[in-house]
């Protein structure tokens, strides 16, 4: 008979391999700061003013293409990403950014889902602990079936209808 921990060995190995794979995938080398990559990511953040919610990178419209050209020019002129973003917000307002900012009211759109999720997890944990608290005598399967059958007759349906 093997030691009880022995059967966990393959699972630990599995977890390690998975971690290595994820680690390798997560390490993309240096961040891509080439002008092309910056253009790509900036134009994905800017909203095409004449379309319906598309980014200027996606939109085939002439306005969007003009903005792409402008952003390319600004990158070539040495402006930083932040400066380019600010310039657009200056002209068009916050609306031009497809991703809401991390400040002011916009912060809510980021925080509320996280708060909601935390709350949900909390409720679930409380519910699970309550549901797991068990009476000392666990009913047998027969008990349970009997109770459920009676309960089912009483309040459930079928054609009879208790109420």
């Amino acid at each position: 008979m093997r030691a009880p921990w022995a059967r966990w060995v393959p699972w630990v190995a599995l977890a390690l391999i998975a971690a290595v794979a994820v680690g390798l995938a997560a390490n993309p080398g240096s961040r891509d700061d080439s002008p092309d990559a910056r253009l790509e990511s900036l134009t994905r953040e800017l909203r095409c003013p004449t379309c319906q919610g598309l980014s200027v990178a996606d939109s085939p419209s002439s306005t969007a293409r003009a903005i792409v050209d402008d952003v390319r020019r600004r990158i070539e002129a040495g402006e930083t990403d932040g400066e380019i973003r600010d310039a657009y917000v200056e002209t068009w307002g916050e609306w031009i950014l497809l991703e809401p900012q991390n400040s002011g009211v916009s912060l809510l759109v980021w925080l509320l889902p996280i708060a909601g999720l935390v709350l949900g997890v909390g409720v679930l944990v409380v519910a699970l602990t309550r549901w797991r608290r068990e009476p000392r005598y666990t009913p047998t399967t027969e008990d349970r079936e009997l109770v459920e059958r009676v309960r089912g007759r009483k309040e459930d349906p079928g054609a009879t209808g208790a109420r």
Partner: protein
Amino acid sequence: MRAAIGYGALVWGGAACVLGIVALGAGLRRSDDRLLLLGRRFVFAVLVAAVVAVAVMEWALLSHDFSLEYVAKNGSLATPVFYTAASLWASLEGSILLWMLILAGYLGLTAYRFRDRATDPLVAWATITGLAVALFFFILLLGPANPFRLVAGVVPTDGPGPNPLLQNHPLMAVHPPMLYLGYVGFTVPFMFAIAALVTGRLGEGWLIETRRAAVLAWGFLTVGIVLGGWWSYEVLGWGGYWAWDPVENASLLPWLTGTAYIHSVMVQERRGMLRVWNLSLLIATFCLTILGTFLTRSGVVNSVHSFSESAIGPMLLLFLGVVAVVGIGLIAWRGDLLRSHGKIDSVVSRESAFLANNLLFAAFAFVVLLGTVFPLLVEALQDRRLSVGEPYFDRMTLPIGMALLFLMAAAPALPWRATSGEVLQRRFRVPAWIGVLTMLVAVLLGTRGVAQVLVFGLAAFALTGIAQQFGMAVRSRSSVHGEKIPVALGRTVTGNPRKYGGLVVHVGVVLVAVAISVGAHWSTSREVRLGENESATVAGYTVTYLGSDTTVTEQKTTSAAQVRVERGGDDLGVYEPAISTFPNSTQGIGTPSVRTGITRDVYLTLISSPNESGRVTLGVAVNPMVVWLWIGGGVMFLGTLIAVGPSARSSLRRARRTGPSPDVSEPTEGDSTDPGPAEVPA
């Protein structure tokens, strides 16, 4: 004349709703079966009214009766018959009419299915609820969304035709009806949920009765959403299929809560838990379909789909408020009856997985809802305009989607109640190894990005788990009954269609998830300017511009470029991306030309027609695996059909059953392969 018949039918339908509600209400009050039977008949009167109204509208459209405002605005002599017929849903009034027809159809089917139980208060209350919803839509149709309004003044001799985007692709004929079949289908379980709350019969009966309707509605909604994406991909020309547009989100929202529901309903069926939650999910799903209609049809958000704007918004919002208040009020009123005898034996169990699933779907829905309405709220409250777009939704939903994918892979193999470590090890050994090895291979082959690699791993994990479940069941069947493999497979599926249908749906989800992930990371898109017979190479595909021509039809003027696509010397054919101009719009509408392939699509758009020097600008995108999105959607629908299909076991049970009352303690169509420790078959 036609307007009079159509409007008359709507008046008749509205009156039938009122009379039906009165008769059923009185019948319930006095416990008078005759009144209940009478009230039920009005459902069929409503159905007749809706069919007549739609038939009159189609007749008017097809015969170009421009004395009707709707036809004058959405029809034209030049529009092909196919698109003329489909222009029933080209604009607001017709869409609501289609909604009405589908609602009436569902009500009729429900009344027919429960024909033997018409005097059951549960069914009567459900019918009242259904008729009340129908009444609301008749009121819309009689007032702000009247499709039979006559044109003021001189009857025009021709009309502008539907919005160009709606007469550009045959998918437009299927996408909206499918979506509506899904949207409206959720009315049926909603009706029964309200009826259960009103009558206090909150056991599992109402839920089992409407399970098929809910699952089928879900399937239609899934297909509707996928077809919408496909239409967007084939028509809009930006190369994508989903832009987190508010109206796309509106279709996704009820899908998310509906998906949560069809999972959590199983917990209630098996364990009698989550009663309040399931009722809330159904009411929320129904509310979200109304909210979706509000977002689409009131013009409140500026979006691709806001083809129409109308005064209908406030009424929809009011109806939404009424439904929400009534629903929440009823749940609060029945609070004591809803307290369920919940018990969870182990955190590692199927029911716990379903709870986590529901939490995640609820979070997903919350993110989508918040992101969609947030700009509206800020604008309304602060008079500031801001955008919540794709980057936000991508970032927020990615982790949730990953967690859901993991649960989807793991949960079907978890037994109900509790389990031993050994069972878990045995069930997960092979899928987990295959999943992890897939990740490793993907990384070694050069895949980068955590999400990317995880999707591959989870997909392999899920598929192996599903294959294992099918394999085990089929093997044991064929060895016990000596059946051949295909026979055993067929009988396994029909023996428990719900389980195996569900697993088939999961296969579809895996396909969609992998396709989305691959598409997001390996698409290449470039713009090329080419003169005649010049070529450019994008991601291994060589495109050669051959020339262009212009075709003028009554419907549109199309300027098309002929582009030869080649790969590694193989000629893949000539494709014709085009720009069309329709008489009713000055803006050119691009029509992409897509070479659909099993591993990748070549997506060509004509960005600008030939200039003076004869050069065109083409958009060339190479999008991997896109076709698997549509295939995955098809597989999901196939699984849905299996899941609602006839079950060999339940028909056997029905044959055996002697008493009229179904025994709910019996696990209805649970899974046969995993009797958990506490679940020894009697």
